[in-house]
């Protein structure tokens, strides 16, 4: 199995706790013989390389340097994510099993790639805009929420880290309950459950692609 993980933060670029989570996830997957490509942002460490731990990192920077906010920055960064993901796709004989998108930033790229190559994606939720912005509903927050909604709609599965988040996503985005999987990162069965969901997704068991 070959998996692309999209995350806007990854060591050495650490913004919040997502970077460590994704790093840990990638390490555990590699131990279980999964080919892992982490696609992430870095301003100058760009390109694909195989790290000492056998994780392949692909870092891109933003071709548009000036921005009016995080939203336009994210929206133009997605084309570089698409470019490097396509590069991995063509260099690995078009054998990509699935994409795991961490939070909202690279949902646009995952959606385009799904439509282009019929590769399923999983939307893994660390946090949602409703909580980050404390319910603010300016056009800026609504834009981000609309991208998160697109992720819930186009993904084949949604992985959350708590029952509470599952209920929040159902409440907020009206997602059918069976589409959401709760896998607690600290639990014993964590990586086993993640792998199980990956396997189901590639076999289209969810039926949502």
């Amino acid at each position, binding site marked *: 199995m070959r998996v692309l993980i999209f995350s806007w933060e990854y060591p050495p670029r650490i913004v919040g706790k997502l970077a460590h989570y994704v790093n840990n996830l990638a390490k555990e997957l590699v131990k279980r013989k999964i080919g892992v490509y982490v696609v992430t942002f870095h301003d100058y460490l760009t390109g694909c390389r195989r790290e000492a731990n056998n994780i392949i990192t692909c870092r891109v920077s933003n071709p548009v*340097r000036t*921005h009016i906010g995080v939203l336009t920055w994210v*929206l133009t960064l997605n084309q570089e994510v698409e470019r490097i993901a396509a590069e991995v796709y063509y260099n690995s004989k078009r054998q990509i099993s699935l994409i795991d998108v961490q939070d909202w930033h690279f949902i646009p790229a995952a959606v385009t790639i799904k*439509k282009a190559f019929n590769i399923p994606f999983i939307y893994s939720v660390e946090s949602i805009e409703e909580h980050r912005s404390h319910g603010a509903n300016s056009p800026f927050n609504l834009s981000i929420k609309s991208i998160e909604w697109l992720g819930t709609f186009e993904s084949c599965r949604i992985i959350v880290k708590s029952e509470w988040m599952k209920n929040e996503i159902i409440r907020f985005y009206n997602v059918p309950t069976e589409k959401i999987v709760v896998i607690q990162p600290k639990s014993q069965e964590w990586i086993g459950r993640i792998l199980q969901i990956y396997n189901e997704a590639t076999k289209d068991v969810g039926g949502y692609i």
Partner: protein
Amino acid sequence: MGRTLRVVMFSWEYPPRVVGGISPHVYYLSKSLAKNSVDVYVVTCDFPGAPSREIVDGVHVLRIDSYKNPAPDFATWIYLMNMNMRKEAAALIRSLNGEVDILHAHDWLVASATIGLKHIFRIPLIATIHSTEFGRRNGIHTDYERMIHETERWLTYEAWKVVCCSNYMISHVAWVFGVPSDKLVMIPNGVNIADFQISFNKEEFRRRYALPEEKLVLFVGRLVYEKGAQVLVEAIPKVLSKVNAKFVIVGDGYMRNPLLKRVHEMGLTHKVLFTGFVDDWTLKRLYNCADVCVVPSLYEPFGITALEAMASKAPLVVSDTGGLSEIVEHDHSGVKVYVNNSDSLAWGITRILLDPAHAETLKENAFQKVMREYDWNGISVRLRQLYSLVHEEYLRGSWKPK
């Protein structure tokens, strides 16, 4: 090549959605390409009442859902619209088994959609730059403008070839984005000449606008600063001191009220008629009745009204700037005057109105030129040659997917 060349064109406007000049440009261009046996798809934004899929004059049109996401400002809306455009166009290209030879983008408004698709499907991208943020704003002054400017630069960087509609725009794009000259291709804007060949009762139509003894001076353009209607208004008394004329000003914009006020102050309200927007039917007849058509722009990347006047055999007076400088040769296919100079403009108008024989020569030469260089059919053939050239380079290279 086993099958016909297939192109997917991207434009944020296509009829019935008309915001500016890109919409008619893409309409006529795609239609003429289809006539010249290119398989053309146009991906564009939706419009109330227009179907999401249809075939227009041999062109496959896909209108995407473009108002799905709330957005805080215009540029963010554009990037979000591009996200939706990428998604729907990716599904379209997949449905064609990825068998698309060229992606063609019109302006930064579709930059991120076409750049993403270029890399995902590895299809060469051609970009037409109709105007630049630098030109529209007369420089870059804010982060917002710089972001758009850099997005335009990014599009020219990602494009295999960059098309501009005038040599003026070629040199502007080369300078402002640092595009190497071998990447730049000049293919002019066109006009559908047949549309302007109409027969009707001229006297009767003309009566609605001017007295029989008045010459008819026509201005067509948005009433905004860079189109220069204010220069024409200042020239009016200077023309009237030499020849009796009526000035018909077609178009609308934020300068309409200041211009009306100025005409009133001059005591010339009986000599100037502001029509506002007019429909195509009326516009074509106005061109055909005009004794002179004036294009006094201060900034003009191309100057499509000049072509429309030439196709209608209306003698032309243009300011010597931008694309207009190339379309008109002074005293051969029209009269050129100094930019933003009402004395010079009055001189040009009077020269044509007082010398009908000269006017006759100018409009005949202009008509020959428009037939020779600005007919959509000829233009689409030039573009098809560019498509083929890029396609052949692509086939020889190693970027194409294995």
